[in-house]
């Protein structure tokens, strides 16, 4: 038998190559087991979904999961076991991670078969049920079926274990064909020794880590309220009730979803397009003083608060005598009666886009102007010598040079389309709510619109919004890789 690294003939039963020190036998993988990680995350989510569910759709809130188990410690132990598995996977102890994964499976089975679950009738009033009993005998005339949580947990745990044996990452890695002994120390070291070696960098990073954990990750734990009827101090589990209501019964949810996508995407296209055009025009200006002045003027609206911008436009677009635009249009004979730009559903969207372009186009030009200034003047000179006029130079030199930046800006902004709030909130009113209500304003109204804020439902809407946002980010990342050769996350 020969050493895979240096080709030296190895003695029988040798564990390491006597010449290069390479381990004999199966090469250990250093890759993160993506399938196992995904499986464990799925199993973690499965713990929030219903294990047993009332078969009557009207009683969808009559559901049982870890979240209303009579002994919550079982849920915590289940999550603990999965988190331990994830940590072990993170430190490349794949085989060890199977043990806690298996333990979480056992906890799940014990909980399902041997524990009681609470069926809430109100904040404090509940009955204890055994899930197996509910499935076989039902309760008060209702029949029950196995909920999606069971399938999700089982699939997750199977993937969590099976994934430890599958290394899909290796197919995406190029073999560098270099003997490991010639690699840098950093690559050869183990995780803990690497951390120790760079310990001071980690210490410097610690405040940021704490801040991120505290302000970004801690609040995420609140997403469990999406599965609860939120009553102060005593939220109780209602399974997928809120998601069911949101997708099938909510009057304004789909309007808000449609408005969010429509307003955001059209705004993005218009803002990017306007910024490109203005950048190209600014690039053609040769008088530097004039160019700087124009740049300053177009940047200024970006620094104004949306509240101020809304007040200004409300004033100049007013239907009363103070409305400059309407007075002007009527004076010119274009219209007979004033147009209610911000109070008529036919005009509100157009006005909203116009205000956005006015406010943010200038700021958007910065990146394009920076790219334009980087184009070699030699190219223009050469084209000029070849007889290319301004238009041809724009088409064949400027735009191709700018294309990559346009796509980058577009992709980066596409990931943010679900976060539309302030600009809409300050310009909307009751008369145009059907075309202006976006997911964020919808959640805001639902949360603060009445004394009894339905935090459970609005968390479910927020979770859905985040899910769509995540898909957009991943989609953009994929598009970015295709277009630019590298991702944005």
């Amino acid at each position, binding site marked *: 038998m020969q050493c895979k690294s240096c080709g030296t003939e190895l003695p029988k039963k040798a564990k390491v190559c006597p010449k290069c020190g390479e381990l004999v036998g199966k090469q250990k993988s250093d890759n993160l087991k993506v399938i196992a990680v995904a499986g464990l995350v799925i199993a973690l989510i499965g713990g929030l979904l219903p294990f047993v569910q009332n078969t009557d759709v009207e009683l969808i809130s009559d559901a049982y999961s870890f979240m209303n188990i009579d002994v919550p410690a079982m849920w915590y132990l289940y999550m603990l076991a999965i988190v331990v598995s994830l940590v072990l996977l993170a430190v490349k102890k794949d085989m060890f991670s199977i043990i806690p994964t298996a333990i979480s499976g056992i906890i799940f089975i014990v909980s399902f078969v041997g524990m009681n679950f609470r069926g809430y009738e109100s904040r404090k009033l509940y009955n204890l049920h055994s899930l197996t009993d509910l499935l076989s005998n039902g309760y008060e005339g209702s029949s029950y079926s196995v909920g999606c949580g069971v399938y999700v947990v089982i699939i997750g745990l199977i993937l969590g274990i099976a994934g430890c044996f599958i290394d899909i990452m290796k197919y995406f890695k190029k073999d560098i064909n270099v003997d490991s002994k010639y690699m840098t120390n950093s690559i050869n070291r183990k995780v803990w020794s690497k951390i120790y070696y760079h310990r001071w960098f980690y210490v410097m990073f610690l405040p940021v880590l704490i801040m991120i954990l505290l302000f970004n990750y801690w609040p995420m734990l609140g997403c469990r309220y999406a599965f609860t009827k939120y009553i102060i101090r005593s939220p109780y589990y209602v399974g997928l009730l809120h998601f069911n209501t949101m997708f099938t019964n909510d*009057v304004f949810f789909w309007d808000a979803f449609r408005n969010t996508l429509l307003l955001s995407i059209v705004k993005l296209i218009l803002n990017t397009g306007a910024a490109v055009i203005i950048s190209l025009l600014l690039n053609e200006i040769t008088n530097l003083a004039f160019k700087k002045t124009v740049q300053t003027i177009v940047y200024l609206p970006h620094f104004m608060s949306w509240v101020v911008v809304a007040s200004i436009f409300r004033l100049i677009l007013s239907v009363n005598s103070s409305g400059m635009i309407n007075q002007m249009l009527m004076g010119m004979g274009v219209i007979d009666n004033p147009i209610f730009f911000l109070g008529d559903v036919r005009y509100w969207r157009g006005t909203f886009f116009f205000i956005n372009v006015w406010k943010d186009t200038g700021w958007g030009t910065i990146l394009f102007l920076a790219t334009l200034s980087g184009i070699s003047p030699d190219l223009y000179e050469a084209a000029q010598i070849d007889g290319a006029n301004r238009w041809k130079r724009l088409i064949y030199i400027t735009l191709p040079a700018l294309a990559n930046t346009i796509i980058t800006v577009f992709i980066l902004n596409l990931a943010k389309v679900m976060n539309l709030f302030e600009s809409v909130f300050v310009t909307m009113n009751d008369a145009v709510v059907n075309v202006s209500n976006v997911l964020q304003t919808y959640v805001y109204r639902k949360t603060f619109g009445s004394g009894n804020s339905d935090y459970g439902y609005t968390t479910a809407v927020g979770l859905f919004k985040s899910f769509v946002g995540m898909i957009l980010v991943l989609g953009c990342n994929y598009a970015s890789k295709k277009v630019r050769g590298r991702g944005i996350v």
Partner: protein
Amino acid sequence: MKKTIKKLTAVGLTLTSVMGLVACGSSNDSNAAGGSSSSKEVTKPDKFTIMCDSTVVTETNGAAAFYEQLKTATGLDFQWTRPDHSGYYDAVANAFNSDDTMPDVILLSSDYYALYASNGFLWNMTDAWNSSETKKSGRLISTADNVLSALMVNGEDGTKAMYGFSPYRGNGCCTYIKKAWLDAAGISTADVEGKTLDFNTYYGYLKQMAANKGHYVISAPGFISNEAPYTNYLPEFYQQANYTFYKNSSGQYVDGFSEDKMKEALQRIQTAVNDGIIDKESVNNSTSNARDKFYSTDAGSESGVFTYWAGTWANTLKTQLATKGLDNELIAIKPIQELGTYVERIAPCWCITTAAKNPEGIFKYFIDTMLDGGDVQTLWEYGAKGTHWDTKAETVTLAKDDEGKKTKTYEEGQFHFLPQPESPDKLMSKNHIDPILALAKFQDGKEDPGASAMTETAKANGDFFAENSTVAVPLPMTTALSENITDINTARNYVISQVALGYMTVDEGMNYYKTTVGSLADTVLKSLNK
């Protein structure tokens, strides 16, 4: 092996903290809901906590002196929690999330009051109130019973009881007309002032004023208000129409919005907008926009009729008009015939939570003393002597750099307000209880020390409103109501705006309402009539 143990220990520690986070808020509270106050001997409470918004003098405006003097006057030991005014109800919600943070005493607006009472977090003070010194004193104003009966709401078990006490009336809006506009339109003041007009006459006057000025007369803060009693900014147009659910004469809850009275009201508003009486921009107006238009010196955007808060605001409106150099004579008209009375909102109230160890004691020594008709009431109405007001002989200087100094000299024994600690260019005007709205008078022989500082306009208007108003009836909180009311109100407001602006007919609006949220309204009605 040792390394593995270390790693596992580290993982264990990390997970412990994760479990700690996850476990937050998962506790199942088993505290009993607030039981009724009993008749056992009431002792003075030990130190207790109070949470309130900035309607009580703020920390930056001399609250320390107020706390100190209140402590001396009542002999109580308390600790105050004063969240930021704009985020007050977020702080309240957070405070109720745990027994450790729940205050003993809390100030709540009507919506939150009903919510927390129905969730069983508030102590039932009905018996305590019935045997209280204030109730027995005979100093309560004539409308006190109406105000306090509105505080009877459903508790966790569904029984109606008093879970909070309000020491002042909720106040409401009345309609002010600029005398200068009446004069300019050739309308005699005598035809309006003190008269109960009917809608046609009132509308006729509005039309005359609009014709005279060439533009709208009323610019309201929205075609509908976003809090109860909702119709209070255009009461003459809504008249008897109910915006939301209410109990009708046969004791059944009905949806006021889908009734004929609302259809008629919407038609009146549409006609008024179409006739140029009501400003179309009302849909965009905030309260400050609407006020600015009432004070406006621009003849093109000035409004002449404004339905706004009574009492102290009557004086503020006059002062602002005078400051802008406009004629400041205002006529507060009586409610028109079809309206009957103005509506008074339900006042914010002081509640004792189930976290309080000695609720009877807190009620007796803290809440019941707010209207003691003496020193404590003075503190709640005017603030701390020497910090917010005084009676000693002195010259009070209002300082403002750009406007120079304004001074006024007072004699010994003359009540006067002092400059606000946080804004020395403005005088204090009141503390938590507006003297005009207080539910109880001062004791015989103990005159209200600040009565002389009250402006005649504010006092007269406060009395006028009290005579011409009824208190709003609270809506009981049900699960179906709290889950659906935002969507229902969104549809209602959309219909009102669309009809008012002429984009929908009344029938189209009502059809839209029925098709979008009709089933939700039915669900709510079902829950209310259960």
